[in-house]
């Protein structure tokens, strides 16, 4: 059964897509993070450079690499370079 991942976009990623939360359909077995990032870049071509510079999180935890599987119900966050302080 297919489902959805909740993509959360911050800063320039949010501005370029125009929303902070993007429901993203995934197959029941989920998708590797790399594939979600590829699909995002295809759907929002201007997002490419931001995605290249971003860190990604699954359920509020940083992904060490993009081989991790993101499953239906997961939250997938896109963090462009930080700028606090």
């Amino acid at each position: 059964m297919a489902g959805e991942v909740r993509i959360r976009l911050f800063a320039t990623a949010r501005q370029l897509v125009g929303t902070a939360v993007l429901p993203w359909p995934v197959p029941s077995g989920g998708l590797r993070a790399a594939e979600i990032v590829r699909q995002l870049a295809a759907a929002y071509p201007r997002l490419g450079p931001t995605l290249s510079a971003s860190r990604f999180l699954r359920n509020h935890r940083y992904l060490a690499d993009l081989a991790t599987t993101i499953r239906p119900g997961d939250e997938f966050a896109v963090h462009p370079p930080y700028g606090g302080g």
Partner: protein
Amino acid sequence: MIPELRLVRRRLSPERAARDLGRARPGAIVVFAGTVRPDRSAQGRVLALDYEIDRIPARTRLAELLREAHRRFGVDRAVAWHRYGRVRVGDVAVVVGAASAHRDPAFRAARFLIEEIKRTVPIWKEVRARPARRPRRPPRPRAGRGGGSRRARRPPAARRRAG
């Protein structure tokens, strides 16, 4: 005693941090405060910064940084506070500080905290600016008024762009 870690919408007070860090009778206290500067940006004069955070990983990371400051520099107490939401020019956006028996660890811990917050905590800022002004008519020089006329001589605002 206020929390070492704060991510809040409301005002931050470096005075409060100094007072609080002093409670432990430490020997040395260092407090850093970062305020929003009245800069010019590409969009015009900065009025405020809108800070966005990803709350859960931001808290996790700040807590790690505080533990690391204690572990690495042996300070008695450290604070790391950051605002989110709109922070106006002149207001404090971030406060870090450390208290220690000696000054070197306190200085180093405070510096470590602010550098790592900027680099590794999921916080972003967006400039809220007043668009640069464009002349409607040529500026009229005023005799006998020096510094005070700087603002008057600036071209009036392109109000349409400001919306």
